[in-house]
């Protein structure tokens, strides 16, 4: 395993070196940074030309210039060294300085987009594979074709012009009318009915329940003024925890034996109690505290699963940890929404942001700032992940269908395993293997997509920096972009390889 990783590292480093060299040459070829100055006739322009030639090292031949750039760039690899140097921009700023903020905000965008796309895409893919040739399957197929064919920049502008403005207008006086609730209810009913499937009676029952629940919830929330000051509260957190316990038990263990269910419910109960008990700690925690609390939740859940799991200890631990994570996320959202009122006033009611990655001069404590980031991430993320969600879901669907036709799935059925076990243990695990390869490609795609999204939403990230640099014929920031995206691509490729090796024992030895 170690040898495998080391060999991958060496190959990746080689690819990265060659890639940066190619990019360096292309960037150097793409334009002359001095062109604008040469047309300038103001006195003293010669000095400025000479100064910039010197600063950008322009009189050195390109390959040599690359080596010098590489030499100073490689210092960035040394930890805690202040010498990290990626050259200067045409305006004389250090590229490392420009990069600092850009990298973190782009990583924010890409990480959120990757995880959202993966989770949503894989779930949709599995459901449609299990309901092949159903209406839901046809609808999602059609939708994914549409998403893949949608120009990102066009869609992003549409989001910005319509969704943001309309949503903000609606949030100023948030009420759901009866017809609107009915329409949303029908849509939700259709989705649930076709996802659950079964005979006609079951379809109608699931449609009815989903319709009533959705429309009812919308109307009640609207009437109680929830949309004006949203929040979840301890009751909802507890209910979500209970639902997660039931759902995950159904998914991972079934109800034939009760140990897993008891462990999951106990975890949910502990979570609900801790949510109340830690009220003080949660009112304005540091980010480190938040991470610590998440780890604590996982540890407690593991302990509960271990203690109550009985003969199904392994599944009990898995289920309990799942419940703990879902509850933590719910509590997180609950706390974030607690800053809503404060934030709403601070941004004059224009909650859905369309410009930049944070509200300037706003400081609402931990939760306020997180909410601020979330509202800024909302639209760029939606724009960015459409293609990825479509790709993941198509890929997962195809992969699951392929796996479900394999002989070993038939063998699993012939052993008398429940359909749940066949799908979760045998089909899903194998179906995931090709998805890991997709992940590496998708991150590179998202980096490209970020160029467009950041331009449209003026998100001060790497993509924005790159486009500006290219327009200004500014080689060093453009190069920094390629260096970082190349690194990210290599890292994600490695992660994908490791995930692949973890999932597929056949390649562990080679």
């Amino acid at each position, binding site marked *: 395993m170690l040898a495998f990783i080391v060999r991958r590292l060496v190959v990746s480093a080689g690819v990265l070196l060659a890639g940066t060299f190619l990019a360096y040459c292309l960037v150097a070829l793409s334009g002359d940074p001095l062109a604008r100055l040469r047309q300038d006739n103001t006195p003293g322009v010669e000095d400025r030309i000479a100064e910039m030639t010197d600063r950008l090292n322009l009189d050195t031949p390109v390959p040599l210039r690359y080596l010098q750039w590489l030499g100073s760039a490689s210092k960035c690899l040394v930890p805690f060294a202040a010498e990290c140097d990626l050259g200067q921009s045409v305006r004389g700023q250090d590229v490392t300085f420009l990069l600092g903020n850009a990298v973190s905000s782009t990583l924010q965008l890409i990480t959120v987009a990757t995880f959202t796309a993966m989770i949503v895409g894989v779930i949709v893919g599995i459901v449609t594979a299990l309901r092949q040739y159903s209406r839901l399957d046809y609808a999602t197929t059609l939708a994914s074709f549409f998403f893949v064919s949608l120009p990102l920049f066009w869609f992003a502008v549409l989001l910005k012009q319509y969704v943001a403005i309309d949503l903000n207008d609606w949030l100023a006086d948030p009420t759901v009318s009866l017809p609107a609730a009915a329409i949303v209810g029908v849509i939700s009913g259709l989705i649930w009915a076709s996802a659950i499937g079964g005979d006609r009676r079951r379809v109608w029952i699931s449609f009815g329940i989903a319709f009533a629940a959705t429309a009812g919830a919308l109307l009640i929330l609207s009437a109680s003024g929830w949309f004006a000051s949203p929040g979840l509260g301890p009751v909802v957190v507890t209910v979500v925890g209970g639902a997660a316990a039931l759902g995950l038990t159904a998914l991972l263990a079934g109800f*034939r*034996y009760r140990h897993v269910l008891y462990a999951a419910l106990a975890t949910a109960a502990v979570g609900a109690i801790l949510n109340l008990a830690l009220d003080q700690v949660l009112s304005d925690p540091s980010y480190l505290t938040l991470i610590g609390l998440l780890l604590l939740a996982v540890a407690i859940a593991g302990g509960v699963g271990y203690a109550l799991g009985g*003969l*199904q200890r*392994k599944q009990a631990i898995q289920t309990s940890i799942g419940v703990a994570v879902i509850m933590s996320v719910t509590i997180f959202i609950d706390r974030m929404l607690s800053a809503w009122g404060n934030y709403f006033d601070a941004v004059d009611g224009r909650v859905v942001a369309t410009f930049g990655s944070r509200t300037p001069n706003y400081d609402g404590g931990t939760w306020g700032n997180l909410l601020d980031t979330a509202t800024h991430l909302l639209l760029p993320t939606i724009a960015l992940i459409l293609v990825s969600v479509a790709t993941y879901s198509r890929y997962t669907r195809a992969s699951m269908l392929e796996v479900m036709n*394999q*002989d*070993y799935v*038939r*063998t*699993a*059925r*012939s*052993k*008398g*395993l*429940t359909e749940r*076990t066949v799908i979760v*243990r*045998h089909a899903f*695990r*194998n179906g995931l*293997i090709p998805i890991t390869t997709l992940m590496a490609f998708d991150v590179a795609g998202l980096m490209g997509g970020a160029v467009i999204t950041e331009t449209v939403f003026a998100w001060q990230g790497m993509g924005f920096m790159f486009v500006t640099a290219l327009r200004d014929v500014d080689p060093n920031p453009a190069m920094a972009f390629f260096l970082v995206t190349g690194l990210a691509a290599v890292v994600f490729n490695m992660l994908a390889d490791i995930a692949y090796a973890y*999932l*597929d*024992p*056949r390649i562990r030895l080679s």
Partner: protein
Amino acid sequence: MTTPTPDDPFRDPRSMGAAGSDPLDVPAAAPTEEIGPDERAHLGHLGLSRVGAEELLRVEDLHVDFPTDDGVVRAVRGVSYSLNAGEVLGIVGESGSGKSVSSMAVLGLLPKSARIRGSIRFRGDDVLGMSQPAQRSLRGRRIAMIFQDPMTAMNPVHTIGDQLAEAVLSHELMPRRKAMARAEEALALVGIPQPKTRLRSYPHEFSGGMRQRAMIAMAIINSPDVIIADEPTTALDVTVQAQILEKLIEVKDAVGAAIVLITHDLGVVAGMAHRVLVMYAGRAVEIGETDEVFYNARMPYTAGLLGSIPSLEAQDASRLRPIKGAPPSLINLPTGCPFSPRCPLATDICREQEPALLPTDSMGHVAACHHWDELAGVDDPTAFFRSESEASR
């Protein structure tokens, strides 16, 4: 063929593994005990006149259709057979004769699109009418299956031990440790050396023969009453084939199971089966005791199959007498006997009327042929398939 003796430690299926700690095992396993050791020894020999032997599986008038883009594929068209405790029934036929499909129907493993009619009874209970959980509790526990290709039939991402233990755990709640011990025992039984370390191996670390042994271990781990072996040796080397077949018979006797052996290899059937069912174009065309069918074939197709086997005893190669042509399309079957286009004995009646499966000159030997008496009239039925060159010599 080994016959279980009363002192065989594996005679009683419940003596295997941790069955003693298993409360669920008691009622289901009880009926097997009705067959005493004497009776079993008797059954083991030839399978003749199995009076008093318990009937485990009865398939009656089974039809399976698959709707496709090109039309309805009628894969199985009215197959009936029964299987007694401890018996080995061979099902023989070419690819696409419906032999695999009919046995998959027994286990409920056919795709959802399949349309199944007829009745399948296991110990008198209607399998097709059962609830899903009831059907599931039969699968792997009372009726187990061994598949053709050991390379693809095991999940590559789970260890052998996990895959074996899973078969136990899906029917009984017990500590994983105990299930693993059962798995180890089963691996030892099928002759895998160092079973304890092998539990942690992945399927790709096994050779083909070893994998098929593991498949057999997986099938017998719950001491089933019936094992359906779907071409268990087709994908293996010839030398390994013999070992696997021998092991299959050995473990069958150890756990006291009956076997439905599906194969296109008449040699395998001849060496193992008590009775043979020959299938052609989705129907049973001949059923009888193995010796009866082999020495007194009463259906030209069976005779043709026998004539297609190269034999060491034959003096010259020209004795090979293949059946000409190919099996018919199961979407558009010809009228009359489906074998008539390839049959040297076919007359007008064959092309108009599909013959029913009727008794022939010996007990328990049925065949679907208008002209079975013509075959009865000659010494070597395969001679009908003699090629022109051979005939003119």
